Structure formats: structure tokens, C-alpha cells
């Protein structure tokens, strides 16, 4: 069956498990989501489910977006995301709820957009070691060092690590254990951290490495 949801990161806290041990959890408000489209091999060449999340005023959307949603009698939604699924078993226009997808002790993968760090040096971005601090050094402490060889090849290879923009990337946290599910409030708590700021959009999927 298809498993996947769109949600918002609320923040981190601790909860106590049945043994009284403190567990670090990230709370996510997930769903309810609408099935806005089902992709089929005949029509689209692959199988997938398109979900929509967070109702908005109709004037926030373009005419094309409104028409797409209206076709399946779904309210205006801010976010649309597609999930690959071999055997969806859902219909266009359905709503999907957190409680029927994930339960405590399941494992999930969570996709988010990491916090933007701006232009960062090599030490912070790629854990370069930097230069020596002492022995007469003046400005080498966080320097990136060499970027490659000399006359041959005479250029820097593409993809060489160095200073540059860090963060604001799509990041997946795999195999997070579900510690708490509140179906009434569409609230899920997963053990550990989740990429992105509080209030950031996250996508929940079934853990692919289980």
C-alpha cells in the first residue's frame, strides 16, 4: 500500500518511553493530505501518487493550479508533491490520514530542506582541517590549502570541494523510528533530528532501508 505524507516540522523536545528513558523526538504535523492525482503506466509511463497539503484561499493559487485541483473536487492546496509507489491503492480525491499510515515503532525516511548557511569556508562546509595555528603562521588558520595539481592538468577539476554556498539543500534523514503518533491532531514524533527549520515543509516516506 502507498505510504507517504507531507507535513510541517514543529520542533524538538524529549519524551519518556515506557521504561522511563528520555527519548529525543522531533514533532511533525503531518497531513491530512489529499490525493490530487494518481499517475498510471498507461497514461504517464510510471506509477506515483500526487499529494496536496495545507488548504489556502483560492486567490493564492493560479488558475491552472485551481483547475487541476477542482477536477477531483479537492480544496485549494498550497503544496503538491509526488510519491513513487508500485501499488498505490488510492483514488484521486481521497484524503489520507496519518493514523492509517504510520504507527509507533515504524521506521520512516524524512525529507526536508536544510537551513541555509550562506557562503561558508571549507572548514565549516567540508570539515577541512585548516592550517597550523602556530610556528609563525599569520593567516593560514582556516585556509583551504591546495585545490589540485600544478601545470598538469593546469585547471581545477569540476566538483572540487571548496568554499561556497552551504545549506538550503534537499536532505533525507533515513530510518527514523516513530516514537509517538496522535491521529486526532495529525501529530507524529520521530526519534532524532529532522532537516530544516521549525515550520519547514517535510515529506514522510516509508523507510526504504528496512
Amino acid at each position: 500500500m502507498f505510504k507517504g505524507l507531507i507535513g510541517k516540522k514543529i520542533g524538538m523536545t524529549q519524551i519518556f518511553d515506557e521504561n522511563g528513558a528520555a527519548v529525543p523526538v522531533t514533532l511533525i504535523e503531518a497531513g491530512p493530505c489529499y490525493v490530487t492525482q494518481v499517475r498510471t503506466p498507461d497514461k504517464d509511463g510510471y506509477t506515483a501518487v500526487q499529494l496536496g497539503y495545507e488548504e489556502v484561499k483560492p486567490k493564492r493559487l493560479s488558475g491552472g493550479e485551481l483547475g487541476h485541483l477542482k477536477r477531483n473536487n479537492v480544496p485549494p492546496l498550497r503544496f503538491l508533491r509526488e510519491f513513487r509507489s508500485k501499488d498505490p491503492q488510492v483514488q484521486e480525491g481521497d484524503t489520507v490520514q496519518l493514523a492509517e499510515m504510520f504507527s509507533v515503532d515504524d521506521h520512516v525516511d524524512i525529507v526536508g530542506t536544510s537551513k541555509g548557511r550562506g557562503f561558508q569556508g571549507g572548514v565549516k562546509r567540508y570539515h577541512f582541517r585548516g592550517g597550523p595555528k602556530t610556528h609563525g603562521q599569520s593567516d593560514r588558520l582556516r585556509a583551504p590549502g591546495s585545490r589540485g595539481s600544478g601545470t598538469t592538468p593546469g585547471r581545477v577539476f569540476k566538483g572540487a570541494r571548496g568554499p561556497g554556498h552551504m545549506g538550503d539543500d534537499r536532505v533525507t534523514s533515513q530510518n527514523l523510528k516513530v516514537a509517538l503518533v496522535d491521529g486526532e491532531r495529525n501529530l507524529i514524533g520521530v526519534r532524532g533530528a529532522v532537516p530544516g527549520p521549525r515550520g519547514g515543509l517535510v515529506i514522510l516516506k516509508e523507510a526504504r532501508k528496512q
Partner: protein
Amino acid sequence: MNDILKSVEAPVNQDIPELAPGDSVSVHVKIKEGNRERIQEFKGIVLYTHNNDGNSSTFTVRRVASNGVGVERTFLTRSPRIAKVVVERHASVRRGRLYFLRTLTGKAARLKQKY
């Protein structure tokens, strides 16, 4: 803190009174041995309390064990493993964190009682 975050927190244990640095306390900790559950007491002086809001609040108790070895233990205030805390004595102290007790032993490590 966010209201939704607050809503998943453990309830406040009514058997834990407000703790202050310098209090002589006896912490009753639930310990599981196989299927049996028993209570162990940890008696000492509260060195400091931390983060007094929500699930992550803690307090640290110092006790001088045999041979004058100091033992410090930090408890999560909202943990279900704590049955209750009994305050035996309040002391008048002028600091929020009583780190100075670590270097003192015997008579010098006494605190003045607060009435």
C-alpha cells in the same frame, strides 16, 4: 515554547516539591529488577536545578559516599522513574550553583539551615 510541543510533555509529578540549591533531599527512585520494582533512596544536597520548564528540566544532587567520595547524580524532574522527593532541610545559600561544595569536606561542607 510552542503549545504543541508543550502538549506532549509528561505531567508534573505532584510528589516533587519545588527544589532550591542547598536543600537536603531524599530522592526516591524506582528501580526495575527483572519483574520486581523497588524504590532506592538517594540522599544528598541539591547543587543546582536546571531548565525548570518542561520535560528536559533536571536537578543535581550531591552525596558524600563512604571514604569521602563525592557522588553527584542528575535527575530528570519529570521522569516517571522518580517516585517522589522529600525535602528534609532548607539551607540559606547565596549562590545558584553550589560548586564550591566539591572542594569542601567534613565540617566545612555544612550549610546554614534556613527557617
